[in-house]
């Protein structure tokens, strides 16, 4: 998997989260390039947010501190506009990262933690949208679909939020091993029969 080659990605047909949140996009091209450059510089950096054992080993040292993603673009070169719309283009949210520290399968359920609920007002904008959506457990795929985000972006975002303790990551059928166990399949079977 490589990072940061989304510059030519076509605009999704459905409204993006930025649009849903009422942020106007007033001139994306230049600033998108700005982010593109920044993204390449940061392409190899991984945030050390995941204390999970599945997290890939990250070298200690000059890594960025874990925390809310800065949604504002760099100040230079943006004098002509005050809009921050391009800053919330999907991969800008993730600072160009395309991998999450958490091993999130597409069907993995996430739900807002009690901490996420109590600190809702303190969350950054995009985390708020996710926290609102995940008041009930939702899969990574649902979060991506309902917020019109590419799957990879939703994964990184949810990985960050899990690292911050804002969302709880639930177990999947295959969490324990590579394939679901018989007891779980039995439960799925009886569940299907009851439908």
């Amino acid at each position, binding site marked *: 998997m490589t990072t940061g*080659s989304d510059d030519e*990605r076509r605009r999704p047909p459905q409204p993006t989260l930025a649009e849903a949140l009422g942020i106007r996009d007033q001139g994306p091209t230049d600033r998108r390039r700005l982010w593109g450059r920044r993204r390449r510089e940061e392409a190899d950096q991984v945030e050390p947010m995941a204390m999970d054992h599945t997290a890939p080993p990250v070298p200690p040292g000059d890594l960025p501190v874990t925390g809310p993603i800065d949604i504002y673009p760099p100040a230079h070169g943006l004098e002509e506009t005050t809009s921050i719309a391009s800053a919330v283009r999907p991969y800008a949210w993730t600072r160009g990262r395309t991998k999450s520290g958490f091993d999130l399968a597409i069907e993995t359920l996430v739900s807002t933690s009690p901490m996420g609920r109590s600190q809702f007002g303190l969350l950054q904008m995009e985390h708020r949208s996710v926290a609102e959506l995940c*008041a009930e457990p939702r899969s990574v795929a649902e979060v991506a679909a*309902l917020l019109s985000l590419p799957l990879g972006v939703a994964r990184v975002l949810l990985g960050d939020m899990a690292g911050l303790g804002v969302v709880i990551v639930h177990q999947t*059928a295959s969490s324990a091993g*590579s394939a679901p166990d*018989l007891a779980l399949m039995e439960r799925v*079977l009886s569940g299907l029969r009851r439908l």
Partner: protein
Amino acid sequence: MDSVGSRPEAIANTATISAKIVVAGGFGVGKTTFVGSVSEIVPLTTEAVMTEASAPHDDLTATPNKTTTTVAMDFGRVSLDSDLVLYLFGTPGQHRFWFMWDDLVRGAIGAVVLVDSRRLADCFAAIDFFEDRGLPYIVGLNAFDGLLQHHIPDVREAMSIDPSTPIVPCDARDRESTKQTLITLVQHAMQHRMAAGAR
């Protein structure tokens, strides 16, 4: 605690387990219809960006500067119990998107390969892939207009499918038929699992 946090079910839900089943087949064979017939939500679509990872499989010679493509997959959700949710994922229609299938099949219970018997070749790639990954699958012969165009033994022979792999007729529009197809798959996956455990 705010009003959201005081809802007891939000706490109780924290141990919800999710499982998934993959629905594959050629373009237009009825994957989304199949998913939609049992899903409690209108099937959603999610997009993933294809990167250079797919380059060996994707012919980019005509568009050498193109480095990304967006692919979409449909999925549905079925709550089987208060703490158990089943997701049905339709594979992207184009068989070349292997990289995404890996993600799709990892941890899946199994796969339903939907087949239109008039276009058997459309599903060969899917079957090869599942056999290669050792993912249990069954074949659902979608009966368009309620009619099976070919007999099941003929289809089995034409596709050289192992005799232990079920081939069942199904109608993707019919909830009961879809349900039965999924039941057959889970039963097959359990047998597959027990056989693997016995070896």
